[in-house]
């Protein structure tokens, strides 16, 4: 049942990729991601799930570059949630390997994922509103620098969090 959840997330990722672009290159990237995800689900290997997630992500970025569509908040958030669900489900499947499962393990995982989805949607909506408000006031030349600084800041914050938690 846990692996079925992972398989559902992989199907969603592949479908989102195909809906973004019909390009053959992206299709092949998607198939590579699908193969890696199949290995991850069958063997319950976390590294394969991470690799599949990264391949899907690269495919998605490629699809966005090829299509140059307007921003689709729902699709991008669903893609991110499906990635988190894939990683979480494969991790749970690896932990439950050869073990008896007691209690609502799958139910609580799904409930947390739904809560995460709602939180992400709220945060994304607020973020988009804020970005739209700021876009008019910021100079266009500074935006790549701001994006890079934001990304670097996020990575540094994450590194600090990991250091404290680990």
């Amino acid at each position: 049942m846990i692996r079925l959840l992972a398989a559902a997330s992989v199907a969603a990722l592949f479908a989102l990729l195909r809906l973004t672009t019909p390009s053959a290159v992206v299709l092949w990237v998607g198939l590579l991601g699908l193969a890696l995800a199949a290995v991850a689900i069958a063997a319950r290997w976390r590294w394969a799930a991470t690799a599949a997630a990264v391949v899907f992500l690269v495919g998605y970025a490629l699809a966005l570059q090829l299509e140059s569509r307007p921003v689709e908040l729902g699709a991008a958030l669903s893609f991110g949630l499906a990635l988190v669900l894939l990683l979480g489900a494969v991790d749970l499947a690896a932990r439950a390997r050869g073990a008896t499962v007691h209690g609502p393990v799958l139910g609580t995982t799904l409930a947390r994922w739904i809560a995460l989805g709602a939180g992400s949607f709220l945060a994304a909506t607020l973020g988009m509103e804020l970005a739209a408000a700021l876009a008019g006031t910021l100079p266009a030349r500074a935006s790549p620098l701001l994006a890079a600084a934001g990304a670097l800041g996020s990575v540094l914050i994450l590194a600090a969090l990991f250091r404290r938690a680990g």
Partner: protein
Amino acid sequence: MTARLTPLALSILAVTAWAVSLGVLAARPEPFLVALPSLLVLATLARRVPIPRCSIVHRISSDRLFEGGTTTVTVTVSARSPVALVELVGPLPPGAHLRSGRHRAVMTLRAGDAVEWRYDLRFPRRGVHDLGTIAVRVRDRLGLRTWEHRHVDPMAVRVYPRIVPLRSLPRPFHTQPSVGDYVSSELGEGIEPGDIRQFAPGDRIKHVNWRASLRLGQLYVTQRQRERNADVVLMLDTLAEVGVPPETTLDQGVRAAASLATAYLARKDRVGLITYGGVMSWVRPGSGATQYERLVDGLLRADVVFTYVAKDLLRVPPRVLSPQALVVAITPLLDRRFAKAVLDLAARGFDLVVLVVSPVEVTRAALAGSPTDDLACRLWALERRSELAELRRRGLPVLEWRPPEPLEAALVGGRRRRVRLASAG
């Protein structure tokens, strides 16, 4: 309790880093939106969360078994606070097999919940197995952090060797003063009639032989033979073994030793044990149920410890290896040092019986059964036959036991021809 980040946290971090980098490179906002759920998950690391608390109690259905027996391990987990996910790895000692259930469990608990989980373990081989440790790993809500510890509640299961009832035992030459089952040539209190003599003052009326008295016209009394016990020392060869557990030559030897000990103790004999190998240990001869426990304790721990050193039996105290004792040497005769020790004992005048556990049959049972294996086993059997003949030629009573034939058959086949005890009393 050890806290650490999980592989899931690192996976999510990797995916987030890729998404953010791709967003910068592609100059598109969507990869940042893709990274948002992952960032929200990772942001929970900033919160200091209390460690989920759960208590564990475990018990086993039986702490004493015979080989092949089963015990049930029951683990009860009670949550004092909500536990998102707890992983438990119950004890599964080497050599034990899962008969039913699983020794690993994953569970989600609400505060106050108690879950009971059980599994059955089968122990095909003798030994003392530790069942007291459970590894516990508790995860936080999103699976980014774990806390690990070991729940230790010392408990062990003792697996005794299988015992077969024996009727034909090697009889000892010498007896001891205590009461036992061997009929002595000395007259005194006993059950077996020995001789008759004329009545003398002090004789008890119940000893009068009325038939002889009426025939001879005088009072005659029946004299009885005393019944004595003997000292038996089981000497187990732990220098080398062949075969696959739980059917190695040492396992078979331990079973034979346990069966002989049980049979001799039932005859009120005093039984001792010497394990002769890399580590030499002994149990003083004694009798009764407590002595059986002591002997089995020694047998449970018997194992092959490799050594180049030949141990000297002179190190064994005379209280353990008394000159009056019957020594039953149990060996596969794989190491010449044991044969030398046995010959040394025989030369010192010990009453000795050598029970040889045939390694050929044990090895043959472990092999695939190709013609080459069969030929090698037959050649080995011929070689061993000549070795045993050499020992017999030197005056050693050698009994060969070829498992899986019954031990009784080996004991009956080589029964020593002694009608009476040579030096009873």
